[in-house]
C-alpha cells in the first residue's frame, strides 16, 4: 500500500459499517469480528502507508516526488472549474501521525469493547457506528479537500452523536447527545463560513493549494484573519475549547470505550489537526494565531480547575482532555506543529488508556463516582497499574510519554511567550494534583461503597490486552522524539524533524532549565494530593469548606451551562416566541384570515345594495347607460 492509496483506509471501515448496520442480526456474534478484522486491516495498511512515506525520505528532507503522496478524483465540477470539488488525499508527517493514532487506538478500543459491551442489546449497532466513526475520522485526517474534511468532520460529529446517545433510553444521554451535536454545530457554522470565505478568493478547496496561495499573498491580511478565525471556530467546537467546551463533560454519557476513542484520543483532536494542517496560513496572520494561543491557554486553566472538583471519574478525565487540548492549541498558537502533534500522539495513548482503565473500573463496579470507590487496587491490580501509568503520563512525570511532549510545549512557551509559560506550568501542576486525586480516591484507601467493592473483579484478557498495550505506549511513546529512536524507526533526523513538514525543521530539544522545575512542580502537586486525599478524606472536606464559593463556582462549571441554558431559554426561545406570535397574529390572522374577513365584511355591507326592488336596479342601469353614452359621445369627437 502506497501513500496515494490511502483512501482505502476510510473505505474499509465505511464498508464494515454498511455490512454491520444491515446484517448485524444475521451475523454470528453480531458481527463484532468483522469490525475488529476491518480495523486490524486498517492498522496494517496504515503502517504500510507510513512505511511507504518513510521510504520517500532521503538526506533528512521531506521530499517525496510531487504528486506521489496525493490522490485526486473530481467529485463536483461546475462550469469547467468554476466550482471544482475534488476528492483528494494527502500524506505527510501529520497525516502519518494521525493515521497511526486513529487506527491503533481504534483497534484497541474495538478489542476492549468486545468485553465491555458484551451482552448489550444493540451490540452489533455499536460496532457498526464505531466503524463508521473510524472511517470518518480516517477520511478527516487523510483528505486534502476542505469540503471532504468538512464532510468527515460532520461524519464524526454524527457518529459521536449516535454514540453519546447510545443509551438513549436515559433522558440524560439523549440530552447530552443533542447538546454535543448542537454545540459543535455552532462551531461548524464558523468552519463552513471559513471554508467558503477561503474558496471565495482562492477558488479552490485544496488545502495545499490554499497554503501556497496564501503564502503568495493572494489574500489580503484582514480577509485572511477573518477567514482563519472563522475556520478556527470549527476547531473550537470540535476540540471543546472555551466557550464551546460545555458538551464534552456531558458527552461522558456514552459508553466508556467510546469516550476513550472519540472524546479523548481522536475526534476531539480533530480541531488540533485542522489548525496544525493549516498552520502555515495561521502563521501569516498573527492575530488569528494569537487567538488560537489564548483560547487554548484559557481553556487549559479553566478545565484543569474544574477537573479538581469533579466527582465522576470520567468527567475528571473529560476535563483533563479539554485542558490538554488547550495545551495543544497553545503549542499551535506558538507556531509549533511539532510540539502540538507530539503531545497529540502521547495524549492519545495515555488518555485512551485512562479512559479504558476507568471503563474497566466501571465494568467491575458499575459505579463511576469517585467518592463511592476506593481501595480497588486489591481487586483490580492490572487496571490499577495501567491506570497509574496513564496518570503519571498525564501528570508529566519522567519518563512517561506525557513528560516529553508537555516539556516540548513548555519549552516553546518559555522561548516565545513567558506569560503562557507561567500559566501552563501552573496548569501542569494542577493536572498532577487532580490526577493524583482520582487515582487515590479510586484505587487507594478504604472502600467507601462496600457493595460495589465486593462485586468488583478484574476484567477478562480481551479487555486487559488493550490496557497493557496502551500502557506500554504511554510509557514509551515519548522517546520517539529522540533523534536516535527516530532514526531507529527509519525517520532520518528523528520524528521531531518529520512532524514539522513545513518551514524550519525543528528537532526535539530538551532543556533542564525547563524540565526540572516542571517535574519538581508536578511532584510537589502529587505530594499535595497525597497529603489531601491519601488515607482519609477529611482534609479534602476541610479544603472544600475553606472556600465554599470557589468550590461552588467550580462544581457548577463557572455557570457556563446555566448561561447557555438561559441564553437558549430567554433569547432563542424568546425570539422563537416572538416569531410565532408574529406568524399567528400578523401573517395568519391579519394577513390571510384578516384579508378574507375584510372581504367578508365588505360583502356583508355591500349586500344591502341588493334591495331587491327592480326600479333601483333599473336606475343603476340607467346611470350606467348614461355614463357610457356620454363617454361614447366624447370619444366620437
Amino acid at each position, binding site marked *: 500500500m502506497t501513500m496515494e492509496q490511502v483512501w482505502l483506509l476510510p473505505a474499509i471501515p465505511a464498508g464494515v459499517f454498511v455490512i454491520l448496520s444491515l446484517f448485524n442480526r444475521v451475523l454470528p456474534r453480531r458481527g463484532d469480528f468483522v469490525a475488529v478484522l476491518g480495523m486490524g486491516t486498517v492498522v496494517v495498511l496504515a503502517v504500510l502507508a507510513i512505511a511507504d512515506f518513510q521510504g520517500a525520505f532521503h538526506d533528512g528532507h521531506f521530499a517525496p516526488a510531487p504528486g506521489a503522496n496525493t490522490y485526486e478524483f473530481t467529485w463536483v465540477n461546475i462550469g469547467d472549474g468554476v466550482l471544482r470539488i475534488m476528492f483528494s488525499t494527502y500524506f505527510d508527517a501529520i497525516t502519518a501521525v494521525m493515521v497511526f493514532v486513529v487506527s491503533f487506538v481504534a483497534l484497541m478500543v474495538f478489542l476492549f469493547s468486545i468485553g465491555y459491551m458484551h451482552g448489550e442489546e444493540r451490540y452489533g449497532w455499536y460496532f457498526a457506528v464505531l466503524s463508521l466513526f473510524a472511517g470518518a475520522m480516517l477520511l478527516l485526517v487523510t483528505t486534502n479537500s476542505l469540503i471532504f474534511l468538512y464532510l468527515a468532520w460532520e461524519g464524526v460529529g454524527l457518529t459521536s452523536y449516535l454514540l453519546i446517545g447510545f443509551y438513549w433510553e436515559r433522558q440524560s444521554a439523549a440530552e447530552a447527545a443533542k447538546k454535543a451535536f448542537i454545540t459543535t454545530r455552532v462551531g461548524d457554522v464558523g468552519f463552513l463560513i471559513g471554508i467558503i470565505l477561503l474558496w471565495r478568493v482562492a477558488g479552490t478547496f485544496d488545502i495545499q493549494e490554499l497554503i501556497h496561495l496564501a503564502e503568495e499573498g493572494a489574500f489580503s491580511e484582514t480577509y485572511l484573519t477573518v477567514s482563519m478565525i472563522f475556520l478556527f471556530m470549527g476547531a473550537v467546537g470540535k476540540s471543546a475549547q472555551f466557550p464551546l467546551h460545555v458538551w464534552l463533560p456531558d458527552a461522558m454519557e456514552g459508553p466508556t470505550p467510546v469516550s476513550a476513542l472519540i472524546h479523548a484520543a481522536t475526534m476531539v483532536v480533530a480541531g488540533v489537526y485542522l489548525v496544525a494542517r493549516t498552520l502555515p496560513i495561521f502563521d501569516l496572520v498573527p492575530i488569528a494565531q494569537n487567538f488560537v494561543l489564548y483560547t487554548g491557554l484559557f481553556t487549559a486553566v479553566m478545565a484543569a480547575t474544574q477537573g479538581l472538583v469533579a466527582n465522576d471519574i470520567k468527567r475528571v478525565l473529560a476535563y483533563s482532555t479539554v485542558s490538554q487540548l488547550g495545551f495543544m492549541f497553545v503549542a499551535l498558537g506558538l507556531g509549533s506543529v511539532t510540539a502540538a502533534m507530539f503531545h497529540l500522539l502521547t495524549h492519545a495513548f495515555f488518555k485512551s488508556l485512562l479512559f479504558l482503565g476507568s471503563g474497566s473500573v466501571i465494568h467491575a463496579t458499575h459505579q463511576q463516582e469517585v467518592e463511592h470507590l476506593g481501595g480497588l487496587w486489591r481487586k483490580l491490580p492490572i487496571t490499577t497499574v495501567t491506570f497509574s501509568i496513564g496518570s503519571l503520563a498525564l501528570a508529566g512525570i519522567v519518563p512517561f510519554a506525557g513528560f516529553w511532549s508537555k516539556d516540548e510545549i513548555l519549552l516553546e512557551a518559555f522561548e516565545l511567550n513567558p506569560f503562557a509559560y507561567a500559566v501552563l506550568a501552573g496548569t501542569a501542576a494542577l493536572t498532577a494534583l487532580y490526577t493524583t486525586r482520582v487515582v487515590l480516591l479510586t484505587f487507594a484507601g478504604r472502600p467507601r461503597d462496600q457493595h460495589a467493592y465486593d462485586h468488583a473483579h478484574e476484567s477478562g484478557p480481551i479487555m486487559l490486552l488493550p490496557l497493557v498495550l496502551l500502557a506500554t505506549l504511554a510509557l514509551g511513546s515519548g522517546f520517539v522524539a529522540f533523534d536516535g529512536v527516530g532514526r531507529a524507526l527509519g525517520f532520518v533526523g528523528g520524528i521531531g524533524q518529520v512532524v514539522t513538514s513545513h518551514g524550519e525543521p525543528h528537532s526535539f530539544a530538551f532543556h533542564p532549565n525547563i524540565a526540572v522545575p516542571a517535574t519538581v512542580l508536578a511532584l510537589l502537586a502529587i505530594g499535595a494530593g497525597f497529603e489531601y486525599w491519601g488515607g482519609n478524606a477529611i482534609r479534602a472536606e476541610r479544603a472544600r469548606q475553606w472556600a465554599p464559593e470557589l468550590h461552588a463556582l467550580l462544581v457548577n462549571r463557572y455557570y457556563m451551562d446555566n448561561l447557555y441554558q438561559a441564553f437558549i431559554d430567554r433569547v432563542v426561545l424568546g425570539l422563537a416566541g416572538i416569531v410565532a406570535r408574529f406568524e399567528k397574529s400578523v401573517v395568519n390572522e391579519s394577513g390571510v384570515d384578516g384579508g378574507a374577513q375584510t372581504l367578508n365584511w365588505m360583502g356583508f355591507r355591500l349586500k*344591502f345594495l*341588493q*334591495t*331587491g*326592488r*327592480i*326600479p333601483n336596479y*333599473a*336606475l343603476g342601469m*340607467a346611470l350606467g347607460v348614461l355614463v357610457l353614452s356620454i363617454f361614447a359621445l366624447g370619444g366620437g369627437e
Partner: protein
Amino acid sequence: MIPIENFLLLSALLFAIGFYGVLARRSAILILMSVELMLAAVSINFIAFAAYMDPEAFTGLIFALFVIAIAAAEVGLALGIVLRVFRERRSSMVDDASSLKW
C-alpha cells in the same frame, strides 16, 4: 320634405319619456307600457334610418317588424308574469316583489 332630424328628435324624446316612466312608476303594468314607448322610439329610429339612408338594404324595416313582433310577445309574457305575481302577492307593484333582496 321632412328632414330626418325631426324623426330622430321625436324618437329621442319618446325614448327619454319612456325611460322616465320605467324608472318612476311602481305599477308593473305601467312600467310595461313605458317599455312599449321605448320600443316604439327605437322602431321609429330604425325606420327613419332605413328610409332615409339605405332603402335598398331593407334591414331596418325588418328590424322594426321584428321589434313589433317581439314587443307583442314580450307584452304577453310580461303580463303573464304580472298576473302570477299579483296572484301570489295581491299586488302588482314592483317594489312589493323584493324577495331577492340581500
